[in-house]
């Protein structure tokens, strides 16, 4: 009975939306907001990557909310899993290639991660993507040497201060009589690393925060005792 209802629900929803979609003209959106942003973004935020100017400028509060969600998820996972901390001693250590490959990849991944973060306002990429790569860089040694511990104190320090600096950058703008999270521009030439004022700083905060949250999430998952 329950299955049938569920099936009817999902099928009915699909059918309803498919029949409605005939009226929608995808491929030629109206772009009311998008068009306006496109024509103004470069002057207002100084970022050549317009998605970045939307993420950190026009919709900066969404990004702040998203960082908070990630923080809430990591804190909750820590609450749930972090009680009894045992390193997974039962796992076998990785082989020669994994161990040495891991330690060789670490600086490489860090470089790539920071490169992506700092060039987020110029080319595709930015805090989220770079942050994931940073998290991978920190998590790799954990895979190679199961006994290794991620330093949770440092991680929580990074995530706390990175998140706080995002809010603080916003509050500084408020302090100067502008609006919360208003980007502060350094007028400069287009396409240069520092052309976008506070945007790269914000993206650095995002990157560090995402990296630290994800690394701590992963290490929580990897290090809880398995009961099987």
């Amino acid at each position, binding site marked *: 009975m329950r*299955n049938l209802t569920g099936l009817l629900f999902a099928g009915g929803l699909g059918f309803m939306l498919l029949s409605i979609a005939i009226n929608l003209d995808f491929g030629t959106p109206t772009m009311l907001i998008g068009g306006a942003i496109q024509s103004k973004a470069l002057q207002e935020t100084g970022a050549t990557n317009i998605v970045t100017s939307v993420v950190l400028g026009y919709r900066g509060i969404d990004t702040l909310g998203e960082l908070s969600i990630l923080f809430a998820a990591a804190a909750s996972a820590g609450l749930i899993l972090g009680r009894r901390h045992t390193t997974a001693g039962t796992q076998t250590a990785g082989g020669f290639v994994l161990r040495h490959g891991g330690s060789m990849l670490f600086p490489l991944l860090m470089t790539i991660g920071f490169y992506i973060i700092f060039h987020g306002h110029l080319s595709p990429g930015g805090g989220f993507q770079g942050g*994931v790569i940073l998290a991978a860089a920190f998590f790799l040694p954990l895979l190679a040497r199961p006994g290794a511990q991620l330093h949770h104190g440092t991680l929580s320090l990074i995530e706390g201060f990175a998140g706080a600096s995002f809010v603080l950058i916003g509050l500084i703008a408020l302090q100067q009589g502008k609006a919360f999270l208003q980007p502060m521009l350094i007028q400069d030439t287009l396409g240069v690393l520092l052309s976008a004022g506070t945007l790269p700083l914000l993206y650095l905060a995002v990157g560090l925060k995402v990296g630290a949250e994800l690394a701590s999430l992963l290490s929580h998952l990897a290090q809880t005792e398995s009961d099987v």
Partner: protein
Amino acid sequence: MGELEIWIALLLGLMMLSAAILVLLVKNHIAAVAAASVVSLGLALLFVLMRAPDVAMTEAAVGAGLSSLILALAVKRLGLWRIEGKITRSSLLATNTRREKDA
């Protein structure tokens, strides 16, 4: 918009849909996680096609990479790599409903 793009999109779309169905049907949980990451990877490729390089990068890093890693760790921690009675039952259920839907 070239003819080629349409064929690529069609192929990717079909691949993603069949992988999505596999996620629900396949008995082995590792395989289900793998199928889910195929969906994410296909999605990342579609985003490239739709001229959303930022989103494609994020989907590839987060959806296909990180989320698969999380799910794989979970499979390991939950001990789901063994096929148990319960799992088989749930897959059977899913199979039946799929058949009903197709009919």
